[in-house]
């Protein structure tokens, strides 16, 4: 076995699609991974599935598969994705349907289930990691609970010759680590190798974030071609040494700086990055620029995995109402401030029931508060924003209404008012004993 090339075809559910097509056509890859499952996505998908049992998988699943499936099948590129969200089995059936429409035959699709642990957390006594409170305090409002599975089900599906593997909640790095375990016959108890493989997955899981996306700062960190950003490829050797690169001629860049930023992205203790497969240690990682857009990576290590899996629990937390309106020209800031004062007073007069209220002037203090948002000049335009947390949709709607009525009742020259109200499905997490979580594979063959 020489090297394995894995492409990262999506870094989040709404990501661009054509960079994945470019990887398939020009990337000389053997595996294409789509990571599309943010924390809350699965809870929203679970709500959709409760209304219609045939949905609950990623909304762009069909589009992505239509874009790559024919070429992947022709080139023998295997696809691994967590686009199954709350319903991997329905997702696999959808992929089968698309393959049939495209005239593809001889395709094996594996769906991974078992991450849904709603029944387990409902009957057990678990602690919310974020607050230290008992999970029972939100028991009646839980809509989803999913444990982060590791590499095992994906490796098993690959051993059973699956061409496409669709999962629900799986740790993001596992989507990339699994094909390496399968191809190189690594032991899943070789903790240093599992740690190095986790570095690969971690660097690739956000796709364009390592090839120059989420990076450019003109004059300080310039990046060319962000409108046609190339997504990353890891070329991995049997000993775990790997190189990050991208398709020649695509936009963006792979440098020591882009790699370092991504190594620390969403990391707490870099010596103990806990996944279902290993406790990875990133502190010994070394990057070497070996050519333009080619960075070699060594030094990832690891320690034995823990006895617990993290579960992400979605629950209906509250409702949120929002309104915004803009002011411009001389005195814009003072009119924006007056607008905010008026809305706050109106919410009191009208007795709108809210638990939390935030008032911002976009252009002045909306992102970082007043203390550090300093500027010498008054901006030409500002946008007043009022957001409140409520316990019902009805009250949430009333907040945006009090911003919109500024048109005819508020300061001069208010324009472009918008309002919205939505239910907030929030996430907490808990640790579930590994022994309670059992995965299952389901196959579709055409």
């Amino acid at each position, binding site marked *: 076995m020489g090297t394995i090339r894995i492409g990262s075809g999506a870094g989040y559910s709404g990501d661009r699609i054509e960079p994945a097509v470019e990887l398939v056509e020009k990337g000389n890859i053997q595996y294409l991974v789509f990571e599309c499952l943010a924390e809350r996505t699965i809870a929203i998908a679970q709500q959709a599935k409760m209304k219609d049992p045939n949905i609950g998988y990623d909304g762009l699943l069909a589009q992505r598969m239509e874009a790559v499936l024919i070429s992947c099948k022709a080139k023998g590129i295997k696809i691994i994705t967590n686009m199954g969200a709350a319903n991997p089995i329905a997702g696999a059936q959808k992929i089968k349907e698309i393959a049939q429409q495209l005239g593809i035959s001889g395709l094996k699709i594996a769906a991974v289930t078992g991450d849904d642990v709603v029944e387990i957390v409902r009957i057990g006594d678990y602690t919310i990691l974020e607050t230290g409170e008992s999970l029972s305090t939100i028991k009646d409002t839980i809509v989803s609970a999913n444990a982060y599975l590791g590499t095992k089900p994906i490796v098993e599906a690959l051993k059973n010759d699956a061409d496409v593997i669709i999962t629900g909640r799986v740790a993001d790095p596992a989507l990339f680590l699994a094909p390496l375990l399968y191809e190189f016959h690594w032991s899943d108890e070789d903790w240093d190798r599992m740690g190095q493989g986790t570095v690969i997955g971690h660097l690739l899981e956000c796709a364009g974030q390592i090839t120059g996306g989420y*990076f450019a700062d003109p004059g300080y960190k310039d990046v060319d071609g962000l409108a046609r950003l190339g997504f990353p490829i890891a070329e991995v050797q049997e000993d775990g040494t790997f190189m990050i690169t991208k398709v020649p001629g695509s936009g963006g860049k792979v440098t020591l700086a882009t790699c370092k*930023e991504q190594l620390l992205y*969403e990391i707490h203790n870099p010596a103990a990055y806990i996944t279902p497969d290993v406790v990875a240690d990133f502190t010994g*990682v*070394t990057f070497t620029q070996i050519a333009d857009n080619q960075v070699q990576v060594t030094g990832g290590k690891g320690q034995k995995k823990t006895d617990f899996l993290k579960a992400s629990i979605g629950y209906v937390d509250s409702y949120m109402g929002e309104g915004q309106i803009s002011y411009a020209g001389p005195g814009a800031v003072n009119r924006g401030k007056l607008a905010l004062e008026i809305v706050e007073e109106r919410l009191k007069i009208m007795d709108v029931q809210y638990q*939390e209220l*935030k008032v911002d002037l976009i252009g002045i203090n909306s992102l*970082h508060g007043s203390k550090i948002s300093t500027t010498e000049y008054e901006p030409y335009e500002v946008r007043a924003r009022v957001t409140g947390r409520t316990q019902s949709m009805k009250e949430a709607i009333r907040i945006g209404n009090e911003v919109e009525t500024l048109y005819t009742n508020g300061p001069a020259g208010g324009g472009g008012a918008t309002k919205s109200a939505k239910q*907030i499905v929030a996430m907490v997490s808990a640790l579930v004993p590994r022994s309670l979580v059992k995965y299952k594979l389901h196959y579709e063959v055409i």
Partner: protein
Amino acid sequence: MKLREIAHSRTGDKGNISNISVIAHDPSQYLILEKHVTAQKVKEYFSDIVKGDVIRYTLPNIGALNFVLYSALGGGVTRTLSLDAHGKSLSSALMNLEIPMEE
């Protein structure tokens, strides 16, 4: 001098916790970062935003610091009222931090 002159940065989020990397453009300037960009300084800088502890991890191997900011995202990415729910713009704020010029 502004931190931006010698370092670059990226923000990540998990629940109500934000992490901000501070990476030396030139690895030889890492020690300046280690000396002047302390957890205490970052906590004071973000005192309006960060309600919990700030912990600093060092990665001399890549010339970087990693700051973990607890109770930093208005109750968490999925429930905050903040416009920038993920706190993605916090790294840019930190780049505005004033640090002493080295002789």
